[in-house]
């Protein structure tokens, strides 16, 4: 038993940490996010050069062949820098679906381009009515000869504005909420009938709604198998959840450190507010919340590395705790910063907003707890 990173993983983690340290101060981050793409394309090329974009892909396709631990190491550091470049959307979600799809032609055509930084991708899975149900899919795909014709609307597509290609979940059979009958299609973002509306989220992400009107897709562009897209979605969402939670852990650690430092300098009633015992105990609660979050992240990563039977339960538990402890840490960080915590100039609010978006993504803590309950207590 050990909880150490390998030498290679440590180097990877350090390289991300160094990038954040050197290239990602708060003002630079702000201007990166303000880019019309929603991120800085030069940084993306740097990521490619440093090999980060290759991490989760098989070596056969030019990848690094990394696992959950490698992804965790990278994401934790990205969290500390609030990196806006779409590593999750393009590499882990879009790339993850292709990578796990067992479809060599699509892999050949796309993975190399992800790795060299020339292809931006997105995964469109949310619909207006779907809330957090990945299987609630109304977008229709009708077969027409060798093609499928797609109609419907996807909302809140991460990296949807900058993506060159988008994987879309659509219904090829079954009822609105059935897991069976969902198929994944790889489409060009500028294909005829694709209409994008872009907007920003509070964490700085540029996202898009995507309307599909009679969009024609060749059957060869089906990712995975017809009607069996849900399994693939479920597996990739599971990987990405770990990644997002690692990012959240980085953020929580940063918020804890920042808050402690702030209270040591902030004077009220003639002394540093860090000397108030009531605040000290609350910062201990924040610290414990961070340590517990770290532990359950390690647990989920170990389960994923070992392909454990109870992986789904571990991941639901992870998402619950990251959501709840993230909220505790975020709330306290703002409160203990007092009025300063309310300003947009300090980074605290930005970290908190990103934590909030991570909590929401794939279902908030309450939603995930019900999933955990079903897995753990339903006979």
């Amino acid at each position, binding site marked *: 038993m050990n909880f150490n990173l390998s030498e290679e993983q440590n180097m990877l983690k350090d390289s991300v940490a160094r990038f954040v340290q050197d290239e990602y101060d708060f003002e630079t981050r702000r201007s990166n996010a303000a880019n019309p793409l929603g991120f800085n394309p030069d940084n993306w090329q740097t990521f490619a050069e440093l090999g980060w974009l290759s991490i989760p892909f098989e070596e056969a396709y030019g990848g690094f062949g990394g696992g959950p631990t490698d992804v965790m190491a990278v994401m934790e550091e990205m969290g500390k820098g609030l990196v806006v470049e779409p590593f999750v959307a393009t590499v882990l979600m879009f790339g993850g679906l292709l990578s796990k799809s067992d479809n060599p032609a699509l892999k050949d055509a796309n993975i190399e381009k992800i790795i060299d930084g020339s292809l931006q991708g997105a995964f469109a899975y*949310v619909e*207006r*009515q779907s*809330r*957090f*149900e990945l299987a*609630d899919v109304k977008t229709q795909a009708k077969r027409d000869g060798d093609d499928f014709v797609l109609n419907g609307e996807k*909302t*809140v597509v991460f990296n949807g504005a900058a993506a060159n290609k988008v994987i879309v979940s659509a219904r090829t059979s079954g009822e609105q*909420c059935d897991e069976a009958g969902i198929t994944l299609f790889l489409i060009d973002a500028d294909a005829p009938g694709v209409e994008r*509306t*872009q*907007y*920003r*989220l*509070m*964490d700085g*992400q540029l996202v898009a*709604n995507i309307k599909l009107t009679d969009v024609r897709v060749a059957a060869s562009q089906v990712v995975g198998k017809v009607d069996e897209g849900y399994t693939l979605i479920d597996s990739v969402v599971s990987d990405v959840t770990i990644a997002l939670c690692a990012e959240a852990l980085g953020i929580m650690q940063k918020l804890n450190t920042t808050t402690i430092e702030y209270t040591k300098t902030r*004077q*009220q*009633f*003639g002394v540093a507010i860090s000397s*108030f015992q*009531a*605040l000290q105990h609350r910062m201990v609660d924040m610290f414990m919340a961070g340590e517990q979050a770290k532990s359950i992240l390690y647990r989920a990563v170990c389960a994923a590395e070992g392909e454990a039977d109870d992986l789904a339960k571990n991941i639901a538990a992870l998402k619950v705790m990251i959501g709840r402890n993230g909220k505790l840490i975020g709330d306290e960080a*703002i*409160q203990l910063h*007092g*009025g300063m*915590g*309310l*300003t*947009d*100039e300090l980074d605290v*609010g930005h970290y*908190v*907003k990103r934590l*909030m*978006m991570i909590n*929401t*993504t794939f279902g*908030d803590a*309450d*939603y995930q*707890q*019900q999933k955990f309950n079903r897995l753990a207590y339903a006979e």
Partner: protein
Amino acid sequence: MDITFSAEELAFRDQVREFLAQNWTPDLARRIRGEDEEFKAAQIEWQNKLNDKGWLAPGWPVEHGGVAWSVTENFIFETERSLAGAPDVVPFGLKMVAPVIYGFGNEEQKQRFLPRILKSQDWWCQGYSEPGAGSDLAALKTKAELDGDDYIVNGAKVWTTYAQYADWIFCLVRTDASGKRQDGISFLLIDMKSPGITVNKISSIDDHHSLNEVVFDNVRVPVANRIGEQDKGWTYAKALLAHERTSIAGVADSKRRLRDLRKLLSEEISGGRPLIEDVQFQNRLSNTEIELMALEYTELRVLASTADGKGPGVESSLLKIKGTEIQQAIQQMYMDLAGYYSGVLHGDETAESIGHAFGHDARKAYMYGRAATIYGGSNEVQKNITAKYVLGL
């Protein structure tokens, strides 16, 4: 123990409802949700309607244009106003500086300022907090030095809500730095058009402009604008703080927000079922609703005790702490209800075209609401006050 309404009180309730039905129009409600000048004009229009009815200033002495409602009438008005979705008045003039003026000001000050506050001709803001002194009000450093018939004011105030609209600011300033920290503070009324005042916008996490820094660079303020005696300002300000805490509780507004939330929850579908049927969400709702049911009576108890001449007193800290906790719990539920759409910023597109219409508002309310546990004396300071003055610790 009796809270049943008398026939007179029921008649008053009908009168309030009729007034709201006629005056709180959908058009006004739309405009008041707007930004900047549109908001300001609509808010003033609303206050003028209340003033025309004689209902703008409960608690003010009747000779200055106040309305002498009983605790019950006040409760009825607030409940009905809030259930109709109508906003509270902007407190800085009507609820904060006015009681200081009619309580401690001289006759000339009363005649000069109170009528203009009633007619919403002056928009006031509050100059208490400073960069170095947040909840520790008495640490303030903005200084006022006597120079003939004027004070020369230098320093800065922060977190000044709506300073960008304000005609006047009421300030605590230091006129003597030699004694105890609470001594040597004076209470000044300052014209925002005075030379030397700069208002700097503070960008805040709700992406909305309400907070400001107000900088004073050799600003001349006539001694005639000082309330009461020099160096005694802390006494006047303190009397006001308890009142501020009570009104921050926002019980009536929280009731309406909960009611509206219930409706939205019954419309939102999750996994084929309305979210209101979700036991976990029901429990979050009822956790908050039960606290609010209690707090409504805590407030009534405080008001009844005030009416008995005992004053709101230090129990008002409890109202402030619980009231703001409830507000934040409600804001959080709106966020969780909105899900992904809770993150949507206004852009070229309206919220409706993107997803849920209420996502953007939920986020704004949530983010702005973070301030409630910090301003008006942070909840931590309220606990210190309660520990010391109520529990004797």
